[in-house]
């Protein structure tokens, strides 16, 4: 069969139109239920412009109290404990003053500060270097300022670990389930898998249910038991009346390595012997 240019164009045009029509009909059939549905944030969810935390270390008296904070976090987030520092996964942990604020110490510092453990967690920086280096956008900054991780996307390249100046990120060198007993697992929260990086998420899953982060809740419980003020505050940095802003305006606070310009959202009140 021979065909001239005009016939060819006619047939091609008609079949394109038919094809497009058919595709849209199919889409209508397949997508009807998905289109009728939608997603939204929970009505009870706590929201903010920029979540932040203030940690008043003078309010913590014993190592035991820090351990409770760590346990509160690590148990609900299925963070494994391999019992060996090189495999350690930490969302919240403690370290010395010198390691926490490396540009601050002086040789005449009192024991009360020098030897005191400082509680550390992801700083949820306003200008997070981990987000900038992540090649898959597995680490990203949410609208509310939380630096969040999408474990589904993490390829385990560990650029973020190199970029984070606070050591807030841990790599799963081993399958975390090896160190988690099935009866200790929180069945409502996933574990991670071998080969991904993880860190504190400011308890996004709890915020979405209207709950404050687990460590802050634990700090409030400790305060209630001992009849003192809680050592951790959580709130919106953008809201002048918020809990954190009140503490920030009342106390002198410092942040870790501010000279790097990452703008951490975790603030520290140091106190010392006289204020303790």
């Amino acid at each position, binding site marked *: 069969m021979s065909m001239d240019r005009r016939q060819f164009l006619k047939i091609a045009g008609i079949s394109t139109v038919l094809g497009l029509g058919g595709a849209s009909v199919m889409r209508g059939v397949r997508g009807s239920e998905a289109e009728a549905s939608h997603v939204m944030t929970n009505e009870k969810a706590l929201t903010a412009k920029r979540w932040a935390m203030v940690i008043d270390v003078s309010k913590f008296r014993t190592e035991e109290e820090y351990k409770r904070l760590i346990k509160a976090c690590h148990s609900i987030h299925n963070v494994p404990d391999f019992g060996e520092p090189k495999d350690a996964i930490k969302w919240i942990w403690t370290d010395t003053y010198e390691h926490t604020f490396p540009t601050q110490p002086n040789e005449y510092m009192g024991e009360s500060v020098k030897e005191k453990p400082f509680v550390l967690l992801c700083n949820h920086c306003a200008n997070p270097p981990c987000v900038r280096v992540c090649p898959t956008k597995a680490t990203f900054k949410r609208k509310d300022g939380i630096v969040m991780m999408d474990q589904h996307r993490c390829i385990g390249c560990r650029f973020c670990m190199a970029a984070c100046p606070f050591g807030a990120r841990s790599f799963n060198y081993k399958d975390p389930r090896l160190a988690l007993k099935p009866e200790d697992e929180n*069945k409502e*929260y996933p574990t991670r898998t071998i080969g991904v990086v993880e860190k504190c998420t400011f308890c996004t899953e709890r915020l979405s249910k209207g709950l404050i982060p687990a460590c802050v809740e634990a700090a409030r419980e400790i305060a209630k038991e001992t009849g003192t003020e809680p050592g951790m505050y959580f709130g919106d940095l953008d809201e002048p009346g918020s809990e954190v802003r009140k503490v920030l305006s009342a106390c002198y606070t410092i942040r870790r390595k501010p000279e790097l310009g990452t703008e951490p959202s975790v603030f520290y009140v140091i106190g010392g012997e006289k204020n303790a």
Partner: protein
Amino acid sequence: MKLYDGGKIIAGLIIFFFLVTFPFFLNIGKVNAKPEPKIDTPEIQKLAEKKCIESKAFMRAEHMKLLNDWRDSAVRNGERTYVNSKGKEFTISLQNTCMHCHSNKKKFCDECHTYMAVNPYCWNCHIAPKEKES
């Protein structure tokens, strides 16, 4: 036209043909057990209205897409409430919503996935419900 080494070539071709079609011959007449996912968990039995979040046909064809959408909306956008096509609300969570009712991963998920030889990596991280003897 002459075919050099005709005997060898034809013999080779026959052997090749049988090698390639060997799996088909092996399975001739055998009936493969069809996957039959089960939804008779105690949790589903207790439901007043035994319905999934969307229609059966939709869930069967589109559950993988829906789960991907759920993953992105919960993790990346922080939107953890799903309003289905009938206006009913559900919490977006594989472990706490899907698997709460479908507490039989082996008979519900694996049944078809194994048959189709697909290996979703959900359970590397997400904790599967404890299998109950039914």
